[in-house]
């Protein structure tokens, strides 16, 4: 017996989806690296809330585990590491877009529209997913890729990657049945490892390469 009615879950997931899109816009619009980091932390927090809501609704204990890991790793640990890297390394705080931020914003809006269009055409899948989680997830993933492609600095590209993974996570969580736990854990492990590798690399550029830290900003994806 679930304490939440399906309709209520539906509404909550849709509201969280709207907030997620809002944080994505904040990431795209961020001119300072700190803002991008805080926005992606907020986004991960929203995703762990969504996990908790779905766990309550479905009574699936796996979802609690996933929500907890997301909170610990993606909402707290990774943003903290990024924050420390920015503080310690005295990198330039500007985001340095390749194309103007306004243009990226316009592209992001286009992505959101296309995502809703695309998921409308995927009729049968929509049955299996709560609310608008599918189009929101696709939009987050693609916008994350957009951020990675249009930012020069290594750290902002990492933020884009995390946002992109958040999108996939959100959709995977909202399947009515949930993905098998072992797979979600595998995915999270990979995210942690990737973040670890990237951080090591960002630090290594500084410690072992006879290059100015300004060169870090020139690392292109």
């Amino acid at each position, binding site marked *: 017996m679930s304490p939440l009615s399906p309709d209520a879950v539906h509404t909550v997931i849709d509201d969280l989806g709207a907030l997620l899109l809002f944080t994505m816009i904040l990431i795209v619009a961020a001119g300072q690296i700190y803002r991008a980091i805080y926005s992606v932390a907020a986004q991960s927090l929203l995703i762990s809330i969504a996990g908790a809501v779905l766990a309550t609704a479905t009574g699936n204990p796996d979802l609690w585990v996933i929500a907890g890991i997301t909170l610990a790793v993606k909402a707290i640990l990774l943003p903290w590491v990024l924050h420390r890297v920015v503080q310690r390394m005295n990198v330039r705080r500007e985001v340095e877009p390749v194309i103007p931020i306004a243009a990226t914003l316009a592209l992001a809006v286009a992505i959101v529209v296309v995502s809703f269009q695309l998921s409308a055409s995927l009729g049968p899948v929509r049955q299996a997913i709560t609310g608008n989680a599918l189009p929101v997830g696709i939009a987050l993933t693609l916008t994350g890729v957009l951020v*990675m492609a249009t930012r020069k600095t290594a750290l902002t590209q990492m933020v884009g990657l995390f946002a992109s993974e958040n999108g996939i996570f959100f959709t995977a969580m909202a399947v009515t049945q949930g993905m098998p736990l072992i*797979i979600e854990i595998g995915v999270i492990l990979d995210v942690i490892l990737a973040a670890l590798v990237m951080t090591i690399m960002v630090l290594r550029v500084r410690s072992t390469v006879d290059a100015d830290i300004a060169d870090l900003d020139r690392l292109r*994806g």
Partner: protein
Amino acid sequence: MNPSLSLLLLPPLIAGIVALVVRPYRRFVAWVSVVCAAVSFAASVALAVAVVQAGTPDDPVAVSTLWRVDALSALLAVCIAFVALLASALGPGLGGADEEDPARMRQFRIFTNAFASTMLVAVTIQNVALMWVAIEATTITSAMVIPLTRTKASVEASWKYLLICSVGIALAFAGTVLAYFDFVATAGEVPGALNWTVLRETARVLHPQLLQTAFAFVLIGYGTKAGLAPMHTWLPDAHSEAPSPVSAMMSGVLLAVAMYAIARWKAVVDAAVDPWFTNSLLLGFGLLSVTIGAFSLVIQRHYKRMLAYSSVEHMGLVAVGLALGPLGTFAALLHVVNHAVAKSMSFLLAGRILHRYDTTEIGGVTGLLRVMPWTGSLFAVGILALVGLPPFGLFVSEFLLIRAAIVTSRFWVAGVVLVLLLTVFVSLIAHLNRMLYGEMPSGVAIGETRSWPLVALALSVGVLIVLGVTLPQPISTLIAQSVRGVIR
């Protein structure tokens, strides 16, 4: 777990752990790696033999809830274990004049062993989502070892590789999730829902347009890892900046592992949709890759980048082959084997050349045949094999590929591929000529050092010739069984 399978998967893991635990680095760590790689290779051969003896594609060996080794898995496992053994035996840390910093040798041993294990897991696991996890892990383990020399270029190459492949792999996951959604929505939650055998059995009742979308995601995602154009942009940088044994593993077998994932998904989607769909997508990406690879080779000025672009070209050929029915798939899989042997050998020789000449430019390497007569001749043999000259194996697989195009009456494919292969031939031979002959640059030492690696690489030449001249019965049986495993 089947004993052969344990002996395949565990040794590289153990060697990696030994390298991790022993600190500071000692020489026996490298010997442990070599021995473990040899055990792993022997186990892969044993699995392949067991599969051939079992006979039918639907009767795999070593099946459990998690693992499944059929002909295709065994074929890939043999290639991976072979190249890993070669890279381990010829890698740094075994002694000799070119000893590097111990910390780097430790790092090399940890991550190449981890890299080999992740690749072996990817081809033997039967859950498509865990296969995805393993392939993502190959990116991480290999990215850690690319900047071994810690130059700015290698860190950049590694960064670019991580970032582009993470995006690619995220798309592949989206495709996997999409197929799983449809499965759960249609068939309900079934144990082993993500096993590709189960997916393939139920594919008929799934929604075709959905599986098509999923395949598009999967193809672009794993295609990024396989170096298919236009997602190949990371490949020339990563493969040319990595230490040569790592380049050999990445170019020789990692690309093939990504193609393996695509082949598995193609089998699932083809069970639900007319194969015309997957075939046209593969044909498109494949021909584009061959084209871009061929024309990049014409203007190439660095020999390691030249080998990297040659990999783009060859993966393109494999993709084209997979799209050309049973005969084409046979050619593609044979090509995977040939390419693994020829390309790993060429990269390892390129490492020796780089060590001696200390330049990556083709223009800087002259008089190679006089400076290093054996390395030079073997490198020449490697390039001649890669351009598809007889008596080497790649001639046979490329010939079969063209024949498959003609048999399926896609004459234009045969024509385009032939013209591009000719372009590759002319440009690679021209580059090779400039390296082999001419005046020796002053200050370069003459003569070979550490000649036993050359014996190992000469064995690779032997394998290529055997594959080209006779194509032994057990190998052709194994490949034929693999084909029946993916095409029904």
